[in-house]
């Protein structure tokens, strides 16, 4: 019969339509605006309405997610805070859109360069969120942030300086638990080798 294909298709559409209400009834109060609800609606067994009601609901961001970079500030055993960055310049050199400017600090007495940045700027309008700076930093000093709600009306604030870029180590650990655990294990190994050898 001519039209059987259309009828079958309409049957599939009708099933999707009915399912969207049925799944909402089945899920009850916990289907929307709860983290469990989002997990149920986004997994491979998802049925019914798929939409995440942003901004009231937000998808959890995976650890590897990369938006803009930030600089990690370590807390030493004596409580002193120190930027991990040594101003080696690898991130500035590896950055594909060249959006990182680093001014290496120098010792005021001798004028010799010291491994710290005097200034660090990132133009977030040019940053392409590729993650190379974080990938190739040898000191785990620059890492990728997860904040993507960056809309603003004024371009003037889009050059982030050192103050805007620094974040404590705890922030980094919270965003990247697995990577942080790996970093700490590597640091412990290096320390053990150093103190064992020395």
């Amino acid at each position, binding site marked *: 019969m001519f039209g059987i*294909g259309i009828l079958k298709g309409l049957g599939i559409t009708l099933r999707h339509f009915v399912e969207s209400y049925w799944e909402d009834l089945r899920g009850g109060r916990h289907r929307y605006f709860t983290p469990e609800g989002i997990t149920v609606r986004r997994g491979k067994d998802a049925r019914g309405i798929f939409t995440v009601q942003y901004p009231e609901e937000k998808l959890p961001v995976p650890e*590897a997610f990369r938006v803009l970079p930030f600089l990690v500030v370590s807390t030493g055993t004596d409580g002193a805070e120190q930027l991990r960055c040594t*101003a080696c310049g690898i991130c*500035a050199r590896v950055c*594909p859109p060249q959006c990182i400017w680093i001014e290496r600090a120098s010792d005021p007495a001798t004028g010799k360069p010291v491994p710290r940045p005097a200034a660090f700027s990132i133009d977030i309008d040019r940053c*392409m969120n*590729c993650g*190379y700076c974080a990938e*190739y930093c040898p000191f785990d000093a620059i890492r*990728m942030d997860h904040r993507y709600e960056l809309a603003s009306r004024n371009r003037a604030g889009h050059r982030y300086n050192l103050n805007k870029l620094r974040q404590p180590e705890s922030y980094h650990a919270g965003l990247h638990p697995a990577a942080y655990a790996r970093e700490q294990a590597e640091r412990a190994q290096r320390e053990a080798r150093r103190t064992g050898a020395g």
Partner: protein
Amino acid sequence: MNLGERFPGRITADGRPGYSGWVCPPDALADAARFLRDAEGFDYLSSLTGVDYPAEDRLEAVYHFYRIADGRCEIVKSPAPRTDPVLPSLTNLFPGAEFQEREAWDLLGIRFSDHPDLRRILLWEGFSGHPLRKDWREPLFEEEAKPFGSRWPAGDPAKEPAAAYARPAGGLSPDGWEPDDDEALYAALERGCDVQPGSLQTECLTVNLGPQHPSTHGVFRVAALLDGETVVNLKPVMGYLHRCHEKIGERNTFNGNIPFTDRLDYLTSLSNNFGYVRAVETLMDLHPPERAEYLRVILAELTRVASHLWSIGFLLNDLGAFFTPALYAIEERELILDVFEAVTGSRMMCNFFRFGGLARDLDADMLETIRGLVADRLTGKVDQLEAYLTGNEILKERCVGVGYLPREKAIAFSAAGPLLRASGVAYDLRKADPYSVYDRFDWDVACRTGCDVYDRYRVRIDEIRQSLRIIRQALDNLPGGPVLAGKPQYQARVPAGEAFGRVEGPKGELGFYVVSNGQPNPWRYHVRAPSFINLTAMAEMCRGGKIADVVAVLGSIDIILGETDR
């Protein structure tokens, strides 16, 4: 008989270290191409591009000819002097050369004599200069190659050259320039058909579809000459998304180019990474470890599924089914993008392949998610999509017999991907010229013989099924081990030479022609964009059809403007 034997003394082997193929002077080029096509069976012109060698006062056109039958390649280079470069056009032998020769004229200034319509293609018609020449500097020029010295160790963004924005390219003065209302385009449009000039006023109408149009798959324009509702002739106009990708590629380091390749076909970033990384790995003679190869195949095939879901969805959207089938397909794609986000850090701009392997490994959880997605959900959903669409009478009325492209024309127009395979040519790079570990899996090339829009849609459904088959086998046989050959390097040491790294992307054969001279940045970087070259056949497919069919044909070619315009 090879080219050197057939034309002794005129055509010589390219003996430069790292190069291969033949060097053919311009006066022998047409004969060489005819010999390759008719006597030796090289019927497929995959890529036509140019390279600028100012030190030797030479612009070189590089041709990659392939044999559909066995996948063999012949590379031919034809040099011309930089002051007045003229080469014979190959459009009468290989119609697929038309747009590529226009691009070589536009960006490098190589003039092709007897080309039917030699106008600029990617840049606007009033542009002066040829940007890919080495002596042409862009308005935002800072230094010849990255990294720029101004960034470290005394980097201060306040010292940026501000006046760069004020200087228009090519010395153009905007105040004195008058637009020419596309005269050359419309003249070419009318020239291509046998309409009498006198009757033009009453019979034919020139209509522009786009560049702002919901169904042109991006900023793309079609100038159509219509007799009532019938298309008499048609010319695609592109370049509205041209972002100087190849010029930027010459300034980037080899490694720094990988994130830029994400942005070519922005729906299939991992496939683009794959092609580029293969080209440079060929130059470096670097081989990724086994685990990396298997993971690359898994990610590339997931990308193919995601791209075809989008393509089918938007074909249906263009036909008027609006967003219902599109969103059913895109829902599944969302789950694949969630996988990409967890693995690579980004849904679309994945930037995950590196020279010698991958950026990171995939852990057991991610592999389980992929396995669950492929085994438990996607197979059933593709069957459901087929049940929903393939038998639909409206789809059949609008797609069967529309956009007919017979087998010989598909090969002659250098069509690639589902466009080629729906015309009965079972040519898939993964089988014809296997790369990575594709030859270890049991799968079939999706090929149909209808040569119309309907069969292109069916080929895409078939390809999704085959991709799911490949992913299942790859997951079952995934070996352990490292995912990168050697240590992570941000400075790739690439020896001098040339390489053409190709992959079978979802849109077709995606190739990267990379020339290195030993420096940290490429000397020449060209993208063989399947969307761009597939459009060469569009006029052929649309002539004689109705204007409404133009949209269906465009949807079946499946173009993406990031790749078309680069």
